C-alpha cells in the first residue's frame, strides 16, 4: 500500500490554499509528500509523468479523495479528515483545465464557457471572457469545429467563468506551437493582473517553466525535491529531474549506431540525423538520451569549413525571440533544436525567421544519459 502525504499552501496572504493529505493506492508502492506555499500568480508543478502532479490537482479539485489530511483554499475548508469535512467537488469552485481539456462536444463554445455560471448575467459574463480570450467570434461553433489552440482558449475561459478560488492547469498548452502558446499565456497573465488568483500550473516542459515561472516546485515520485524560482532550482541540480530541468534545453531519444574506439567517439541516430558523441559503454542498438545545452550550439549563416566539430547540420530558423539578454532560436534541421545566441550575434548574422542556417555541435557537447 502506497500513501500520499502532502502539504501545499497556495494563494495571496489572505487567500491561501493549504493541502496536507495522505492517500493510499491499492497496488503500487507510491508515496507523495509535498509541502509548499505560493502567492497569487503562476506556481509551476514540474515533474516527469507519474510523479504525482495530476493526483495533487485531482485532490484539490475534489475528484480524488485523500485518505487523510487537510485541504484549505481561500479560507474555505475543502477537506479535513480529523473533523470529517469533505466539501463536494461541486461546491469547491475550483477552475480546472484538464490535460485533454474535456470540453463538452455537443455544446457550443458559448454554452461550454457559460456552463459553470449560474448567475442571471451568464450571457454577459461569458461574453467578456470570450472577448478577453479572443474567441468571441467562435461562440456558436462546437469544439470539434475549431483548432487546437482555440479549444485550449475555450477550456481556459470555461474554467475562469466560475470566478474560481484557485486555478489548476494540467499541461493546458501541451502540443501547441510556440507562438500560439505564448499568445495564450500572455492573455492568461493579463486576466490574472486583475483577478490575482493562485494558478497551479502542471507541466513537464522546461520551456514553459522559464516562460511562466515566478516559482517552480519539482515533484519526483511523489515528493517535492526542489522549490524556488527557476534559477534557484536550476543552480543546484541534485536530482535527475532537476538536472534535466537545469541542464539541457534539447533532450532527444538516441540509438547507438556505431562505436569508434580509435577516435573515442560513437555515432548515434537521433530522429533522421546522426550525431557524433563521446564514447560510452553502450553496444550498437542501445537506446540512450542525448542532451545538448542551447548555449553550446554554434550557429552560422553559411556552411562552415575547416572546423574540428563533427556535427554540422543545415536547417531553417523557424522562430526567433528575445528572452532577457539572449536570443532564443528554434532551428529545424530534421530535428527541432533550441539555440541561444547573443543579440550581437543575431545582428551580425542578420538572422530572422525563415533564414537558412548551419548548426555546429561539438562532440563533447552531446551529453549521453541512460533512459530510465
Amino acid at each position, binding site marked *: 500500500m502506497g500513501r500520499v502525504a502532502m502539504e501545499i499552501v497556495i494563494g495571496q496572504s489572505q487567500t491561501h490554499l493549504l493541502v496536507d493529505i495522505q492517500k493510499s493506492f491499492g497496488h503500487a508502492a507510491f508515496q507523495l509528500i509535498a509541502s509548499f506555499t505560493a502567492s497569487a500568480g503562476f506556481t509551476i508543478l514540474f515533474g516527469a509523468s507519474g510523479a504525482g502532479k495530476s493526483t495533487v490537482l485531482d485532490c484539490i*479539485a475534489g475528484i480524488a479523495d485523500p485518505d487523510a489530511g487537510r485541504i484549505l483554499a481561500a479560507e474555505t475548508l475543502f477537506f479535513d479528515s480529523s473533523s470529517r469535512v469533505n466539501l463536494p*467537488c*461541486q461546491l469547491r469552485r475550483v477552475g480546472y483545465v484538464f490535460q485533454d481539456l474535456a470540453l463538452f*462536444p*455537443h455544446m457550443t463554445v458559448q454554452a461550454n464557457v457559460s456552463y459553470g455560471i449560474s448567475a442571471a448575467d451568464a450571457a454577459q459574463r461569458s461574453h467578456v471572457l470570450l472577448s478577453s480570450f479572443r474567441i468571441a467570434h467562435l461562440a456558436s461553433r462546437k*469544439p470539434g469545429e475549431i483548432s487546437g489552440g482555440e479549444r485550449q482558449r475555450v477550456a481556459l475561459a470555461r474554467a475562469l467563468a466560475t470566478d474560481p478560488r484557485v486555478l489548476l492547469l494540467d499541461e493546458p498548452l501541451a502540443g501547441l506551437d510556440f507562438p500560439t502558446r505564448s499568445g495564450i499565456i500572455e492573455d492568461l497573465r493579463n486576466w490574472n493582473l486583475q483577478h490575482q488568483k493562485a494558478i497551479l500550473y502542471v507541466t513537464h516542459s522546461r520551456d514553459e517553466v522559464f516562460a511562466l515561472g515566478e516559482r517552480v516546485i519539482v515533484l519526483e515520485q511523489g515528493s517535492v525535491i526542489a522549490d524556488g524560482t527557476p534559477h534557484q532550482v536550476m543552480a543546484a541540480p541534485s536530482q535527475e529531474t532537476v538536472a534535466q530541468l537545469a541542464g539541457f534545453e534539447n533532450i532527444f531519444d538516441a540509438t547507438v549506431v556505431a562505436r569508434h574506439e580509435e577516435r573515442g567517439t560513437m555515432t548515434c541516430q537521433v530522429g533522421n540525423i546522426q550525431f557524433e558523441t563521446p564514447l560510452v559503454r553502450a553496444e550498437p542498438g542501445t537506446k540512450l538520451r542525448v542532451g545538448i545545452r542551447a548555449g553550446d550550439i554554434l550557429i552560422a549563416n553559411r556552411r562552415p569549413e575547416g572546423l574540428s566539430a563533427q556535427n554540422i547540420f543545415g536547417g531553417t530558423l523557424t522562430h526567433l525571440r528575445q528572452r532577457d539578454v539572449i536570443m532564443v532560436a528554434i532551428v529545424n534541421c530534421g530535428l527541432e533544436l533550441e539555440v541561444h545566441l547573443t543579440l550581437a550575434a543575431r545582428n551580425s548574422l542578420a538572422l530572422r525567421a525563415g533564414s537558412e542556417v548551419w548548426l555546429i555541435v561539438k562532440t563533447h557537447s552531446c551529453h549521453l544519459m541512460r533512459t530510465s
Partner: protein
Amino acid sequence: MDWQAFWLTLRLGVLVAGVLLLLGLPLAYWITYTRWRWKFLIEAVVALPIVLPPTVLGFYLLIILGPRGLPGRMWQALTGRSLAFSFGGLLIGSILYSLPFAVQPFAASFEVVDRRLLSASAVLGASRLRTFFRIILPLSISGLVTGVALSFAHTLGEFGVVLMVGGNIPGVTRTVSIDIYDKVQALDYAGANQTALVLLVISFLLLTLVYGLNRRRWAAWPWR
C-alpha cells in the same frame, strides 16, 4: 386484420417503451456508475430475459401474479381483481421481458461518455442530476433511441409471455402475434399473412430508424 388486437398491441408497446424509459434510465445509470462489487448479479438478472425461453418467464410470472403468489394476492386484495390474464399483468410481463433491450443500450451509451466530461461538469459546480441531463443524456441520444425502439419492437413481437400470462382474451390480452397464431390455427392463411406483413413492415421501419439514427455524428464522435 384484427384492428382491436392491433391497437391493443400498439398501446402495450408504447406503454412498455415509456415505462422502460423511466425505469431503465436510473437502472442503467446505476449499473454504469456504481462501484458495488456485486453489481454483476443485477446485470445478470437484467439480461436473463434474453436467454430465457419466454414460456419459462411467463410461467413464473403467472405463478407470482396469480392468486398463489404474494404480489398477485396483494393486488387482488387491493383492487379485487386478478393480475393474471389481465392487461396489467400483460404489461408487467412485457416490461420484464423487454427490460434488457432498453437497459443494455442505455448503459452501453452511458459507458462511452468520457468520464473526464463528468468530472469537468462537477468541477464547474453542476449537481449529479444536472450532469445527467446536460452531459450524459445528450451524448447518449443514440443509445436512448435504440433502447426505446428495441423495447417497443420487442414488445410487438412477443408471444410466449403473452400467451402464458395473458392468454387470448379479445380486447384485453389478445395481441397481434396471438392473433396470427390463432388465424393459422383456423387455417385463415390470408388473414395471418396480412397481419404478419404489417408486423414485418413496422419492425423493419423501426430498425431502419434505429440504425439510421446511430449514424449521427455524435454516435461516433471523431474528436475527444
